[in-house]
């Protein structure tokens, strides 16, 4: 064995079946997650009369198109209902376990995988979704793929990939009150650009990362792709093990002992080399809000709108030089694979408790399990008392595929991952921010620095 390996080196070599002369590796896939959008890949299989190689390593989850309000309707339109039933038919035909609309374990695929203990350190996880990097928070090699690759994984349980160089992103310092993993992510993306980590796998390290919960690590890894990185990962530690133990599909007993022995080696060696190194002191980071139409068009809530992107500002209906804080919003959305885990809901509820929202809003938990837990803790009552809609789990207004859209020209404070033109609906204006910041925007009806609103409150 060579020394000086990075976490990526270790994950890569343990999955490499072969490497071609051109440097491309054939990798074994431990978990393949499919959703309604995977219909193109299933159609490719059907065209060629192929079957699924490893149905037991495949899980189907209905999330992108599911209704979050009226579950019994089965979907907002015939077309949407057909997307969900197509997933059911494909899962049935290939013997793939399905977490469908009425399954108590249903939720957003990147929330459900970890929750069920299907996501583990040392695994290679693929899904036809760019936010698959979320699972990298466990020290897994997790990356989003397109439909042709989904079909390939279905048919062979393998994927061809060229090993990318690694960029190490080290966070030092401490997060101030009201500052979260979302702000860390938007901070580095604004600094390095939406293509700042393009072509690289990201490894997040540093004393600050060591202190983050799994929910926060997942938010950070989830947003890797918004800075251009297909892979984001964090070495597993005691926090990771505590999260995994006892989950439904997680190994138990002797298998768990063997797993933990293997996981203990999953970290970059002290003297490992990285293609790029960036260090960020997080102590200076304040809550961040996007003002444009790309995730790197983001600035501290205390800043003014910059003047370097006239087209983005025209779309967003903003003027260069105006303060970001005070911008009126029409509605809020708390949800998505980025920020709809229990800690995200607690952070929003801590701000909303005893207060009333001035604008309408939707709170869509990341999974039905998160929903149950939030209801046990009484968070649902806080959202409802504030005047927000408390609904079921799904991708919902992050991507609008289920019909939950922001109307043209309307401005939405959103805990999601993309402020692209038209992402939340044609003409919709999206401002990305943390759950606590979205809660603050709901209460004041404007983009607002949440920090003063936390005074005297128990913050999760």
């Amino acid at each position, binding site marked *: 064995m060579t020394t000086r390996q990075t976490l990526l080196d270790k994950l890569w070599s*343990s999955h490499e079946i072969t490497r071609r002369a051109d440097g491309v590796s054939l990798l*074994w896939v431990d978990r393949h997650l499919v959703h309604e959008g995977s219909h193109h890949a299933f159609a490719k299989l059907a065209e060629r009369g192929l079957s699924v190689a490893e149905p*037991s390593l495949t899980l189907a989850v209905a999330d992108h198109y599911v209704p979050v309000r009226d579950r019994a309707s089965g979907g907002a339109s015939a077309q949407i209902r057909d997307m969900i039933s197509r997933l059911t038919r494909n899962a049935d035909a290939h013997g793939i376990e399905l977490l469908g609309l009425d399954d108590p374990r249903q939720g957003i695929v990147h929330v459900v995988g970890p929750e069920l203990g299907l996501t583990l350190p040392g695994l290679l996880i693929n899904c036809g979704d760019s936010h698959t990097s979320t699972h990298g928070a466990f020290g897994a090699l997790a990356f989003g793929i397109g439909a042709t690759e989904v079909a390939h994984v279905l048919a*062979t349980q393998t994927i061809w990939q060229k090993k990318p160089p690694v960029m190490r992103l080290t966070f030092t310092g401490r997060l101030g009150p009201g500052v979260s993993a979302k702000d860390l992510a938007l901070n580095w993306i604004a600094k390095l650009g939406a293509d700042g980590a393009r072509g690289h796998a990201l490894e997040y390290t540093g004393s600050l990362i060591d202190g983050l919960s799994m929910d926060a690590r997942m938010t950070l890894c989830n947003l890797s792709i918004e800075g*251009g990185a297909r892979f984001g990962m964090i070495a597993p530690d005691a926090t990771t093990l505590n999260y995994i133990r006892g989950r439904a599909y997680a190994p138990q007993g002797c298998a768990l002992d063997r797993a933990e022995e293997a996981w203990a080696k999953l970290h970059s060696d002290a003297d490992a080399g990285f293609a790029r190194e960036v260090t960020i002191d997080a102590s200076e980071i304040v809550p961040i809000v996007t003002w444009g139409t790309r995730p790197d068009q983001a600035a501290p809530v205390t800043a003014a709108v910059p003047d370097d992107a006239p087209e983005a500002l025209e779309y967003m209906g903003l003027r260069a030089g105006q303060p970001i804080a005070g911008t009126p919003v029409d509605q809020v959305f708390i949800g998505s694979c980025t920020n709809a885990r229990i800690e995200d809901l607690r952070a929003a509820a801590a701000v909303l408790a005893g207060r009333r929202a001035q604008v309408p809003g939707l709170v869509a938990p990341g999974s039905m399990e998160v929903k149950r837990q939030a209801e046990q803790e009484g968070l649902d009552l806080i959202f409802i008392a504030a005047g927000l809609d408390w609904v079921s789990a799904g991708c919902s207004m992050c991507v609008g595929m289920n019909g939950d859209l922001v109307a043209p020209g309307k401005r939405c404070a959103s805990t999601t991952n993309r402020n692209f033109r038209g992402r939340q609906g044609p003409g919709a204006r999206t401002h990305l921010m943390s759950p606590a910041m979205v809660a603050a925007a709901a209460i004041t009806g404007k983009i607002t620095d949440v920090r003063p609103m936390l005074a005297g409150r128990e913050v999760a």
Partner: protein
Amino acid sequence: MTGWTTHTGRAVSLPIDGIDTDQIIPARFMSQPRSKGYGHFLLHDLRDDSDFPLNNPAAKGASILVSGRNFGSGSSREAAVYALVDAGFRAVIAPSFGDIFSSNAVNNGLAPVQLAEEEVNALHRALSNRAMSVSLDIQKGRLTLGEIEFGFHLDPVWTQKLVEGWDDIDLTRAWASKIAAFRSADRAGRDWAWPKRQAKDTAH
């Protein structure tokens, strides 16, 4: 998929940075089966503007798109590539591309040709207000537009795939015995990585 090495076709300039896949194809069109064709969804919501470059009659029949930095960033939706391919595009030329978009493009015979920012800008200038033909040779890595000639480096793996029109599933079959050997060694050596099935019968 049929492979290709050289292509000459009309080029259209779309000098915008960060055209993400949500713009290339808005999510609401992605439930259509591919057999119906995705070409008319291409950049759908940007085309509402009559001044949009792709609405220019000179862009009709274009097969090469010249755009800005970080083309195809965002969502992994392969439908973005389907929209380009079904609209007749064979190559996109830009200073940089989203990683997942590039993979998807190559898997569908669409070449993501990366040039330096100033070279792309030179193409945008040459193409402003007139339709011109661009010739590409992906094997030699040469691009020609009138007097302009640029070299480019396409990942050799991608070049070969585009040239041969390779289909990965067919290729991988040649490795079936290696895959089977890896699988059985893995089951024994990493038993913890194989999920225990729940008692619940969910398939039916």
